[in-house]
């Protein structure tokens, strides 16, 4: 007896914003969860279990907040789990939730991932003080920018590829009402001229800091068949982790990334990744990660990912492999939710529910998240057909 076929029947997101001052922590989650339930045509009593994910508890200062959120998430008398795998957590959470259905342990599961970053400061929460040492780099940009520099050196990519990615994703975000950044008047020149923060990374090539939550309702085959509305069938899920520091580690294309991708594409029976995937939602918090992940995930040959960007292949308008039609992490980054947003947006594409940022005729879509020192990976593939 193989895995139970699993369907996404509901997706809900909050509006992402630097401060969602109008809601409590619970209210933020409920906004996404209720929308997911509504599109799934489910009520709270239909949910068998909740699988929640978020990044470090220090972001909001509430230890293991799933405990406090039990009432708001309808978990009185029900199971609730809390996943935490660093930045990939939103994706991992969806994978864990899917396994609850795939294993036939539960029929219908609500999964939700979130962050309310406005309650503190990400730079603080991500680099707590440590005695006997001192900080020598500034936040995630300080950590990842040298890796992007390595990629630029190895690929001989033109200097402005990153700016192309950033401008493209911000244009995509204009078509997504939930996106945090809606920069209607932004020009490519402004991206190029924005200040260098972590040379080679400009301000406009980095992600914002957002409040937000994203939720999905997953159900079994019978539930998916019976659902009166669009469905996304989960055709592969995978998670991989590795150490962030060992000799000979490929930082640009970590082994965990490549192996996770091999696993998930094999599960979905996909051989020609570029040809068979219609929409990609990948975790690109800094612009250059788009070409880097395109290569690592096998959508492009090594050293050639930037050519896909430059050719416009990854643009929603006219590209054959649209990447982050939602605007991506570069346009909305509620850290713990960011991975699940990728997974959920992939589902929306094959459900045909992506609205203005819909990829025409999308039948198979790919969702991706990474975290830690580019060492935690979660991926899934969803399809219109069972």
């Amino acid at each position, binding site marked *: 007896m193989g895995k139970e076929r699993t369907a996404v029947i509901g997706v809900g997101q909050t509006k992402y914003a630097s401060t969602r001052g109008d809601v409590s922590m619970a209210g933020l989650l409920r906004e996404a969860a209720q929308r997911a339930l509504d599109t799934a045509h489910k009520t709270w009593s239909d949910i068998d279990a909740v699988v929640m994910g978020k990044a470090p508890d220090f972001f909001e200062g509430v*230890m293991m907040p799933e405990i406090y959120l039990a009432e708001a998430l309808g978990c009185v008398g029900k199971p609730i789990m809390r996943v935490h795998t660093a930045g990939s957590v939103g994706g991992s959470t969806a994978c864990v939730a899917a396994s609850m259905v795939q294993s036939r342990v539960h029929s219908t599961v609500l999964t939700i991932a979130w962050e309310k970053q406005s309650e503190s400061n990400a730079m603080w929460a991500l680099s707590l003080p440590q005695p006997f040492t001192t900080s020598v780099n500034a936040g995630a940009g300080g950590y990842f920018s040298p890796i992007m520099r390595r990629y630029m050196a190895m690929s001989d990519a033109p200097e402005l590829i990153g700016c192309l990615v950033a401008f493209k994703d911000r244009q995509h975000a204009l078509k997504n009402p939930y996106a945090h950044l809606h920069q209607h008047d932004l020009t490519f020149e402004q991206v190029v001229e924005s200040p260098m923060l972590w040379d080679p990374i400009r301000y406009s090539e980095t992600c914002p800091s957002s409040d937000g939550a994203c939720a999905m309702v997953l159900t079994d085959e019978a539930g998916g068949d019976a659902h009166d509305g669009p469905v996304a069938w989960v055709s592969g899920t995978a998670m991989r982790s590795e150490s962030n520091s060992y000799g000979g580690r490929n930082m640009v294309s970590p082994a965990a990334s490549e192996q996770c991708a091999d696993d998930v594409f094999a599960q979905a029976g996909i051989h020609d990744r570029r040809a068979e995937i219609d929409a990609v939602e990948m975790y690109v918090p800094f612009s250059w990660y788009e070409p880097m992940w395109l290569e690592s995930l096998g959508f492009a040959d090594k050293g050639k990912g930037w050519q896909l960007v430059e050719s416009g292949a990854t643009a929603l308008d006219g590209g054959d492999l649209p990447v982050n039609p939602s605007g991506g992490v570069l346009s909305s980054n509620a850290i713990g939710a960011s991975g699940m947003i990728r997974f959920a947006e992939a589902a929306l594409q094959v459900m045909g529910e992506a609205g203005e940022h819909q990829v025409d005729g999308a039948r198979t879509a790919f969702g991706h998240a990474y975290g830690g020192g580019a060492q935690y990976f979660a991926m899934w593939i969803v399809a219109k057909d069972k």
Partner: protein
Amino acid sequence: MKDVAIVSFAQRQEAQISNESEVEMMIPLMEQAKEAVGLSQRDMGFTCSGSSDFLAGQAFSFVMTIDGTGPVPPISESHVEQDGAWALYEAWVKLQCEDIDTAFVYSYGKSSPGSLRDVLATQMDPYYVAPLWPDAYAIEGLAARMLLDSGKVSEQQLAEIASRSRLNAATNPHAVRNEKKSVEEILAEPYLADPLRPSDIGAIADGGAAMVLATGDRARSLCERPVWIRGIDHRSDAHTLGVRDLTSAMSATIAAEKSGVGADRIDLAELAAPFTTSEAVLTEALGLGDGVSVNPSGGALAANTMMAAGLIRFGEIFERIARGDGDRGVAHATSGRCLQQNLVAVLEGE
């Protein structure tokens, strides 16, 4: 459902482990659990761990600890910010749906760097309760008073639980509190968090645990007497203390029903009860009768290692059944104040 068994276990608990980083603390346990069944990390189909950033005061502490597994080449892995019993649950689910036959589970917590009774205040409702910084013992005291007032249990009975824990712990090398004390001596202790006495409160410990799970024939090939997980379930209650009955544990009762505790005779039970009052409530909630040996290790009263106390309960049952001290046991884990969240499993030898 596939048959999944525990095939090896390693633990360490001490009042304070101050000389080692978390990964240094965990490496020997990880190695020991794998070596006991002759497996390496490469043999593991899935790995899952549990820990909490707030305990040690470090964000992403699990990112450092994963190195102890040897995640090169990469591993299929996940982490829960919960007790390791929930990591075990996730691994059990994975074993059900993936084409794998082994899994590695570990969890750990060091409470000694901070003050657990204060740190746990940050788990409470952030608007109404956490800003008052109620300490964790005083909160349990509220439930304890209700339990005593209800007549379900007496201070004498709580002292008997404490005394038995100490007696049982005397033969447990991992127990932190293992000096014997009579019921009279315990009742003579001054209250620490009235109506709780020092012996009513679990001895806070640092430590961790590691475990290997395997399915079917693979499990049988790895150890002489695998201990099968016959049923496992977990449930939450409301967080708000005022809206639930603190003299019972509704979520534990449901989890016990779902995992099949009442389906057959139970020989022994290990309950992650951080207080004597929790043990009293759980014994009733799980329907454990007089013939059940409850907390033969001394339980979480003898050593309460946050984030691992639940996983260690599984290990204690495993070791006993594996060596023939009983055939069918119950393992329990909890999270939150006053038994808000509970996980229950029925374990059985062949």
